[in-house]
């Protein structure tokens, strides 16, 4: 396994959690291979809430799959927390996933046979954490996300928003280096989506989580610190929220989305 030394954090700059370098992913060989990722490169710093946007087929899902170690890259490197995951062997990948990554999926992917509490605890028990610590950490993360009332309910007894917050709790409870969220608001109504995104902000602020969220929804994206726009497997544009209000940021996003069909220079 290749360990690449972190760039030293200077005067309070947060360290880099995720870095992709010239990542290329080619599907299918022979006559007409598809370049799903075409030399994409970017970094995400600790404590950042980054959105990834792009049209269908832009490569954003492929990017997420590669970062989440569910798929492998054709060339290039992906560094998470200083570790090059493209160099990890198959059997180390599962360990890496459970130790360093958290996942939130569009359709929640909670285990329907387990209660909310057990779903969250599972992320810790597969890390062989002692029971007392498991209980304590589940309670703590549930308090932040406001899901204590549903902890002992089964997923089918919860609303969509509650399910997604339980899923988020499961993703964050292990304190992973990076949380990957794939269209987390896709199956939620607007109220639940807003609550979830505010929960994400809370996790970033209170528990210094780092979140990479793939979404096609400009409203969801407007809660992020920064948006990466992807087109044709390459980084097409970046937007940083900075000190702007969410409303202003949302308008900016809408403009970029509108321009996505054309040239980056069209963005004003």
């Amino acid at each position, binding site marked *: 396994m290749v360990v690449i030394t972190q760039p030293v954090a200077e005067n309070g700059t947060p360290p880099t959690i995720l870095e992709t370098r010239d990542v290329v992913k080619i599907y299918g060989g022979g006559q007409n291979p598809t370049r799903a990722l075409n030399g994409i490169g970017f970094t995400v710093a600790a404590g950042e809430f980054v959105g990834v946007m792009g049209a269908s087929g832009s490569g954003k899902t492929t990017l997420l799959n590669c970062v*989440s170690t*569910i798929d492998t890259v054709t060339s290039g490197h992906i560094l998470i927390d200083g570790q090059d995951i493209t160099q990890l062997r198959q*059997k180390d990948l*599962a*360990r*890496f*996933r*459970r*130790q360093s*990554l958290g*996942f939130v*999926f569009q359709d929640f*992917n*909670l*285990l*329907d*046979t*387990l209660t909310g509490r*057990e779903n969250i*605890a*599972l*992320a*810790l*028990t*597969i890390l*062989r954490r002692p*029971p*007392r610590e*498991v*209980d304590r950490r589940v309670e703590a993360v549930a308090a932040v996300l406001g899901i204590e009332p549903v902890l002992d309910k*089964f997923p*089918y007894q919860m609303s969509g928003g509650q399910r997604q917050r339980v899923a988020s709790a*499961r993703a964050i409870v292990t304190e992973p280096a990076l949380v990957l969220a794939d269209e987390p608001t896709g199956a939620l109504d607007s109220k639940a989506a807003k609550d979830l995104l505010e929960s994400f902000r809370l996790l970033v602020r209170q528990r210094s989580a780092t979140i990479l969220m793939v979404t096609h929804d400009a409203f969801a994206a407007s809660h992020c610190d920064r948006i990466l726009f992807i087109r044709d497997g390459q980084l097409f544009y970046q937007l940083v929220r900075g000190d702007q209000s969410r409303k202003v940021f949302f308008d900016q996003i809408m403009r970029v989305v509108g321009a996505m069909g054309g040239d980056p220079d069209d963005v004003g």
Partner: protein
Amino acid sequence: MTSADLALRNVRKNLRDYTIYFLTLTFGVCVFYSFNAVESQQAIMGASASSGLVFQDFSQIIALVSIFVSLVLGLLILYANRFLVRRRKKEFGIYLTLGMSRGRVSRILIGETVLVGLLSLLTGLALGVSLSQGMALVTAKLMRLPIERMQFVFSPQALIKTTVYFGVIFLLLLVFNTVMVSRQKLINLIQANSRGEWFRTPRLGVSVAMFMVALGCLAVAYAMVLVGGPARALDVSTLRWVLLLVAVGTGLFFFALSGFLIKLLQRRRAIYLRGLNTFVVRQLSSKINTAHVSITLVCLMLAVSIGTLSLGLGVSKSIAYELGRGAPFDATFRAAANPAAGPAYRGVDLTAALEEVGLPLETVASRSLAVRYYEAGLTVPLWLTQNGREERYDVRAYLLRLSDYNAVLALMGQPQIALPQGRYAVNYAVTNAAMARATEAYIASKPTIDLAGERLTAGPDTFHRQVMEVLRNQDFDMTMVVPDRLVEGLPPARDVLHLDYLDPKDRSEALVQQAEDLLRTDSTTRLSLWTRLEVESFADSTSVMLAYVAIYLGLVFLIAAAAVLAIGQLSDMSDSLGRYRTLRQIGTDDKMVDRAVLAQSLTYFGLPLALALAHAVVGLVVAERLLGAFDKGSVVGSGLFTVAVLAVVYGGYFLATYQGSKAMLRRQS
């Protein structure tokens, strides 16, 4: 592409799903053929007349049992088919959505059913025919029959019967599947994968209470048959209650188990919160919850199977032993009143009668002894406990002179007896355990008889259980041994002539058998002959046949139980694939997942087996009491046999299930 092509491709594509189904069909066909073909094994053996009769009786028994067996197998196949079809409902839905007609989809399904049916029928028959060859050798050895010529054992009748029986089952399948496709609404087919049913575990208190009731039922049932020792009589009405309690207890046990187990384990956080344990416990609990009825059935079937397999061999050996006991000499001729010719019996000099038909004793016998029994109109009332009531059973008793009794004992090489003044002896070679108990009770009461003005008393010290003649069935008479002078002037009841053959024995046997045919022509009295050879061959063949019937039934039940579990587990696995995908996404590695699958399979197969073993052991203890002690060596032997069969069939299904589950997971990733 024709429907047939599609069907073929589908079978090939779903080969792994079909594995258990195919295995079960093949096993079923193989066992069905093998046992129905037992009669044909005679072809290679120099079977004697009496073993021929046994073969005939046996094929009738097998025919009856086979009806029941085909019913069990038919239901099993329907059950397996239902799961197979359920898994593919969505696929059929897609065919319909694509505009394929219902008729075409039905034809594809029919094609698949026919294909798998034919394949398993052919494979099963091939296996069955080869199994028959080995079975024939074992039969010959067990029945001590010589193998006269090695030849291919094949039974066309069994082949036709198997084909017809399974043909009918497949036909039913076709109807079932066609109805399924044509009746279902498209929306139901498309959405077949979404799981609707959900079962909430009852509250802890309810679970614990029900679990305790279950244990209570089982404990009471066990106690009813175990407590009280061997002296306690077990009658049918008690047993009915016991069976009911066992069935109810087993059902409740599995119904309450998951709730009970989960609550119990949840309190043990250190175990519950370890690795995938939470997931495993929840999976098991939801599975046992939804399938507790079929698990209960499996458990009961297993108990019957284990009991039948081990009891069948043990009992058949003890029956062989009991039957073999009835041959203290090489042959016994008997003469008694012919019931058709009226009650008067004037006595027959068997030695003279044999000379008359051209068989002087010295040409066949090295030793012989003629003995006469006398009639004094004695019946002995025995009190049997049946269905909770005492019932009187009258046994006829004949008198035998002390000197004759001692002469028979001497011929058998047994020590002589003496009768003190005022005593008589009772000899009754009773085999039935209930009758034996009743007889002992009667003897203990020191019964008396009055003969020629003298009163005689019997007691335990003058009670004997000698088998004193060659007899095939166990219908021994009760004999009262009295001082010689007291039978003076009494009418004869029957005459017997015991022989030990001259060498070569087979020549003597042939001569004696010839003589019997000639004696039969004289019919004012009933004459009969039993030889040791006949009795032993009958005993051997009867025991082998009983063992075969037991193994047949035991195997079928075992296959049925194991297949139901395997199908349940695999279909559950396919329903759970999404859960395993989630587990993998959050970082569970293959090893952890495999261990979780193993733990589930082990529990799923192990729990019913454990309870079934407990049931079977108690059942065996009861059977031993009911049927009388059979020798312990054979119990150990048949126990080992049972374990071996369990390991192969049950273990085989377990492995197939575990591997199948893992393969399903691998295919998914």
